[in-house]
């Protein structure tokens, strides 16, 4: 069957448009549902007060702090390690069997379901190293979990920096380290930041691995050895145990809003970096 190319073109345009609208539509529906179900229950008290009666009343302050501590510490731990590995793989070594093994390991780690990380964290950190359910065990587990993402995105970003820029830097008498820190990393920063953003998203939304390692006790973690609960875990327990759907949706909305804030902040930082190094 022969169709007029012009009709084919129109058809393609319509279908592609529809697909784009469908994708965005799903996202909008999710956000709208969460917003309308959660917004009526959000007020200052909900954000700043301690939870009461397993979360049926009161606020979610402890879980906000738990989330912030977990995400912040695991990112602070995984970023230098991941970016360092990426620099090693791209700048300090040629393609050998060793780098292939590392890369294969990283790819494999990225594909492991989070529950397995949780199980590993439970067996190794919580039991074997006797950390108990604690912020520390959660942070270490989460750092291992997001490491592959940071390594892979950093590696791609570093590889995308034109070779010419390195050559110029060397010709101006820079050492390898100077070239990496002054030319390569600034140019790769937006890409690396994208990887960190993805990792933050994963850490904020994680439940399975966290319940196994950081626990789910509803209290304020004041030290690394305290257990605690993140917003995602709180949401899961509120909904799963049927404690309070209103509070669950309100927690979900705060979760979505904080991810939005982090993204806006990251865009701001990214634009600052791009403005300086372009």
């Amino acid at each position: 069957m022969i169709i007029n190319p012009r009709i084919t073109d129109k058809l393609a345009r319509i279908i592609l448009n529809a697909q784009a609208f469908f994708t965005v539509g799903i996202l909008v529906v999710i956000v709208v549902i969460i917003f309308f179900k959660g917004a009526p229950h959000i007020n200052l008290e909900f954000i700043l007060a301690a939870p009461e009666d397993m979360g049926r009343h009161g606020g979610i302050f402890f879980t906000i702090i738990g989330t912030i501590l977990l995400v912040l510490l695991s990112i602070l731990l995984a970023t230098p390690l991941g970016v360092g590995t990426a620099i090693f793989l791209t700048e300090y070594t040629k393609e050998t069997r060793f780098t292939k093994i590392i890369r294969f390991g990283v790819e494999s780690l990225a594909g492991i379901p989070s529950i397995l990380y949780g199980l590993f964290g439970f067996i190794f950190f919580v039991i074997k190293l006797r950390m108990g359910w604690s912020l520390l065990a959660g942070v270490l587990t989460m750092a291992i979990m997001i490491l592959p993402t940071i390594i892979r995105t950093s590696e791609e970003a570093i590889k995308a920096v034109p070779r010419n820029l390195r050559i110029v830097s060397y010709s101006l008498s820079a050492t390898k380290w100077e070239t990496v820190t002054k030319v390569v990393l600034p140019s790769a920063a937006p890409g690396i930041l994208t990887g960190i953003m993805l990792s933050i998203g994963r850490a904020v939304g994680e439940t399975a691995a966290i319940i196994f390692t950081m626990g789910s006790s509803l209290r304020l973690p004041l030290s690394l050895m305290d257990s605690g609960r993140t917003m995602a875990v709180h949401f899961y327990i509120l909904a799963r145990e049927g404690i309070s759907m209103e509070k669950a949706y309100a927690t979900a909305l705060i979760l979505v809003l904080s991810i939005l804030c982090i993204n806006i902040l990251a865009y701001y930082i990214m634009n600052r970096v791009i403005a300086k190094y372009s």
Partner: protein
Amino acid sequence: MDIKIRVENLRVSYGSSEILKGVTIDVHTHMITGFMGPAGSGKSSLISIINRMIDFEDDVTIHGSVYIDGNNILDGTVDEIHLRRRVGTVFAVPIPLPRSVYENIAYGPRLQGIRNRTELNTIVEESLKKAFLWDEVKDRLHISALKLSGGQQQRLCLARTLATKPEIILLDEPCSGLDPISTAKIEEALNELKKEFTIVLVSNNTKQIARITDYAAFFYMGELIEYGPTEKVFTNPSEKKTEDYIQGKFG
């Protein structure tokens, strides 16, 4: 006349193909020496030995000696970072670093540990003046270097090299992508700069070699065919090949 660079029986291979087949040549201090020859003649490889940028290529074997002020830079005792402070390079395509005009020029001096703002300001201004670019950019030192035109970018690269205060400047076909006016500005700058620096200019453009160099070398298939004062090479070449190349019969 002083000799700045002495190359002795230099042989360079990439893998199994020999790209320089025993080249011996002296480059004189405070002169512009032109290297010309068709693609694959080995002229660019020769300058990448002098600044040891060839270290970044894979599978290279080098035999022979290259002396700068009498010290062999190939005998393993010379630190290549220190060498590249003495030997500056301008590449064929302008490659500004992705940052401001000012920061491009200050890059080299900062690597050398210069932090003082006034000192850096002076270096930036002097270097841009020497590269005949100052008047065009003095009011916009802090815009991105990527916003300059191609000709301005190449003079920026020259200024950036000058800012590291080298003794030798290597230019690898610096005008290959530039219009005649930008080319003239670079040539004008080089003519002034030879008072201070020893300059090696690689070029495919025989007219440019004739215009601005004091000595000219003709390379062909990895061998130095002819070398001498530019006037002699262009008016009375001793080799038939040189004459054919200059007259544009091949290349």
